């Protein structure tokens, strides 16, 4: 039920934000399209934890500013690498073990790694991720530990033990 309401609120908010016209005709058309989307989502059986992750929106809202700071930091490193007269990159492939259990947490962690420039998740096998990094020294497994912990908390909540 919470997932159902979350999807409903998100769709209504999205429609209102996109449209900008609030005449009765267009509002009723919007209501119809939201209803059709809900029926289709219900028929597809995707109103669940992953299809409507709005219940966890507070966790993600807390996680995102930290991620933005990380992105800005690693952006600076890659921009410097791009513009340096001497190309001093040392690419590496590293295996990162994650403590994330649910698929949502794994996706959050892998996407966070890919979003920070200088690291790309190449493959996910079980709880291990193959990460390609621009600098060998910045891609030690410890470097990802905090991101791992934070994305797990954002997607799964703090109640689960590590």
């Amino acid at each position, binding site marked *: 039920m919470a997932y159902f309401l979350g999807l409903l609120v998100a769709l209504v908010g999205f429609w209102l934000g996109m449209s900008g016209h609030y005449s009765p005709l267009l509002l009723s058309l919007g209501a119809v399209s939201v209803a059709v989307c809900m029926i289709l989502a219900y028929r597809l059986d995707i109103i669940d934890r992953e299809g409507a992750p709005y219940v966890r929106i507070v966790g993600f809202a807390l996680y995102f500013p930290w991620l933005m700071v990380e992105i800005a930091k690693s952006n600076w490193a*890659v*921009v410097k690498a*791009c513009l340096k007269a001497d190309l001093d990159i040392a*690419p590496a492939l590293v295996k990162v073990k994650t403590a994330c259990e649910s698929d949502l947490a794994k996706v959050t962690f892998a996407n966070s790694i890919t979003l*920070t420039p200088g690291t*790309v998740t190449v493959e996910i096998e079980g709880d291990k991720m193959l990460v390609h990094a621009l600098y060998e020294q910045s891609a030690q497994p410890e470097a990802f530990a905090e991101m791992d912990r934070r994305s797990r908390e954002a997607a799964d909540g703090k109640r689960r033990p590590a």
Partner: protein
Amino acid sequence: MADLVVSIAEWWQVVRFPLGAALCLGGALLCVVGTVGVLRFPDFYTRLHAASVTDTSGATLLLFGMALMAPDWMVVSKLVAIFVFIYLTSPASSHAAANAAHTAGLQPLIGPVDTHDKEGLDS
């Protein structure tokens, strides 16, 4: 008090256009830097890293700049939607490209890159 609010609002109306323009310029500059990186880096995987500069900080600065210059809140809400979708889809596409290259058997360059050798190959 009301005077102060009005003057702050007027000041904001004056200052937001140059501020937004500066952010847009910075974002465009970062996109150029990302392109330079794509051209300079030696192999596929490292070029992906340079391209992600354009995806993340370049797009973010451009969208923030456009939001500051937006005429009304509808435009801002659309820009926020674009921001959210870029941040959800760009790692997915980078991962798909990297995973496809890895599955196809493309071996990444490992270890320090020999500058002089690669510079010659690049140009």
